[in-house]
């Protein structure tokens, strides 16, 4: 079993196959950007992009991504050059505690790849599954708009 992780092919060891993808990424690959928030697919802190779609890695098993392409927040930047969404996040000073933000950013990236000029309603629809308890939603919205403008 293998999959593509941030552009590189990796095997899925048998002992990790049944493990939630989130743990496989964090504990086996050391990619700790995606976070455990609820383990039930309710909060979105664990969001990664699987074959172009924002998915909950806490309720996806490692075996489920066999032959798929998985992108995590660690794979967004091109070395020191941040992805436009990451830059927009810093320019809008979005994070407070920061814990949900990797998931927010991955949902935003997936949204903008599918819809480069989202309306306010499009943004809400795409982001309503990503909870932020600190209350950064207004800045998230502005950062998505900024990133959308930057890529026009």
């Amino acid at each position, binding site marked *: 079993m293998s999959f593509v992780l941030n552009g590189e092919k990796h095997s899925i060891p048998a002992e990790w196959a049944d493990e939630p993808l989130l743990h496989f990424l964090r504990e086996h690959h050391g990619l700790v950007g995606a976070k455990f928030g609820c383990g039930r697919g309710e909060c979105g802190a664990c969001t990664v992009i699987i074959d172009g779609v924002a998915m909950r890695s806490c309720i996806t098993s490692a075996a489920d991504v066999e032959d798929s392409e998985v992108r995590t927040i660690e794979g967004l930047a091109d070395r020191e050059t941040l992805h436009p969404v990451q830059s927009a996040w810093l320019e809008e000073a979005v994070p*407070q505690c920061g814990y949900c933000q990797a998931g927010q950013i991955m949902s935003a990236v997936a949204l903008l790849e599918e819809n480069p000029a989202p309306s306010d309603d499009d943004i809400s629809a795409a*982001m309503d599954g990503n909870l932020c308890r600190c209350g950064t*939603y207004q800045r998230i919205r502005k950062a998505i708009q900024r990133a959308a403008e930057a890529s026009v």
Partner: protein
Amino acid sequence: MKRRTFLKVTGGSLVALFGTGAAVWSQMPVLPTRPAPDVQAAAGWISHNDGKYILTLPRIEMGQNITTSLKQIACTELGADWNAVEVKLHDTSMQKVRSTVGSESIQYFAEPLAQACAALRDALTNGKTVSDGERVDPRPIDELRSFKKGALGRQSPELVHGREIVTGKPLYAADIHRPGLVYGRVLRAPSSSEVTSKPKSWNINAARAVPGFLGVIEDCGPAIGKATGLGIVASRPGALSLIADALDIEWDVGSLPPQTDIQALIDVDKHLNSGPLPHTALEGVPEDGVWDIDLRVDLPFASHGQIEPRAAVAEWKEGQLKVWAGAQDAFFHRDFLADHFGVSQGDVTVQSCRIGGAFGGKVPCSAEAEAAALARAVQRPVKVQWTREQELTQAYHRPPSSHRVKARLEKGRVSDWDHQQVSSHVIFTPFAIPKWLQSGTDLAVGDPGTARGMETAYQFARSRAQYQLERLSVHTGAWRGLGAGPNMLTAETAMDEAARIAGIDPLDFRLVHISDPRLKTVLERVGSISNWQGSAVRKEGGKRYGRGIACGIYKQVSYAATVADIILDDEGEITITHMWCTHDCGRVFNADQVKAQCEGNLAWSIGMVLCAGLPVKDGRVVAEGFFHSPVPIMSQFPEMTIDLIESSEKPVGAGETAMISGPAAIANAVRSATGIRASRFPLEPKELAL
């Protein structure tokens, strides 16, 4: 007992207790036990080597971006580039500092840090260094560069940790990896933590059959409340839930009459029927007579809902323990762990990690002690991260509260005021103080955390506030703003109703009761930026538009006023369209991040009014996830306009202030749109439907 007296008694008796040694001290986390740091202590936070500085921050970073503001102060005083100062989070090898509670990082840490950095700058200019223990003489505050008017306020440098957050670098306790790391969990009975429980029997063979199973550990750390657990360890985190299921533990659960209806237990009217409530927050004596306003307000339990479930990594090496923790007081954790495991404080190091949200909830030593106990048993480093269900069932929550508030009008002003509340504990909780002391505080002291916000900023002729505390089988404790959120929601909805009965605009009505010029200013300013022209109602095509206002003073030091615009549809669904908030927390070092705190408080205000609740059945929490205990989502979020007062007053906290005005502004907008004065929160759309 009178309020002034109880504060004195509280301070004295607790100080006395802290003198009695580690065993007793370790049971008392939440109280402000350590003095604010002085310049001398601050000198130890900043070091210099060859043009580079290391700022070891004595505050935990949990979302206020206080790290950024304190680094701004350091850079300004040192005259150093942003990139020349590296920030490190402290561990317990540094001098003991105050716990990160109460939104006081700027209030108590800004000036000592500025003084220490200014002294280092001077020393370096003169070719000297400031060595440990050398005396630093504080200079007059107006000689501090970072305290000059406008010196910093408008700067917004890249957030400390911002780049790490957006690129997914390890920052939080659960991100720590150690060689040989394994994963642990401590299982506890599905019952109230106030009922004695322990594991009785379990199916070890079934557990062994789960791939990744490493062991069952009976000696798995201290009880939580009275719930003794059973530890499990696995080579992969996903195995833990499978092992827990396979074990099929039978629990020995003691009998305690279950509190089947907690909301009825704290029913304020039932308690008032049997006599006056025992604790006093305002000492006035209203005159007898008919009340013009007589409102009941009830709020349920609410969880903190921080996205990071508490986590810790623990590792023992040659009798010494190291713990990576995301907790609000690393020193309390160190002392607690040393005490529990019978080692010296010097043998325990707790490294602070960034916290993924705490809001008052990450004070007790729980996941940390569990990880340390399991690590000791298996002789390997262990990571413990609570499940969401553990967060909801084993942590403490905002207490439910039941309020009766009355006001009497005389010549267009409130003459008499009476706020009565029954709730549970916020500060003197089972987490904070032992059982024997709980009875003492219940009898004599009350709980100033529960009472916060019952004091009033208005000039009423006679005002009384009294409250009663019930010990509940669901643990309660500090939640953003402590009692101020619920108490001010209650008081500011009553004030709004009083304005309606007096027939006076609610903004003008508040103004005539205000003598504090700073409160007056925030109220007038929020009226001005929101173009306040009264809480007029408009109906259009089945939609009802409403507008509400509220204001207050938090902890007698910071000020906020909020206006909310809302729309209700015919089914009673509320859309908050815009919130304006004017905020005064004295001198501001990073305006953008103070605004972020206001946005956060308004988010919590929205949650309080629209969704915050926690299902409880037979005296225990039955929630498993965010679905049962919701927090606001993006589409519930309005546009927010935050307006900061530029001030040269003493800087104070901004992390909780807007909790005093946000909830009531929304509730008052609902009242204006519907004519319905809600008495229960969160609001039920069906009760507001056409």
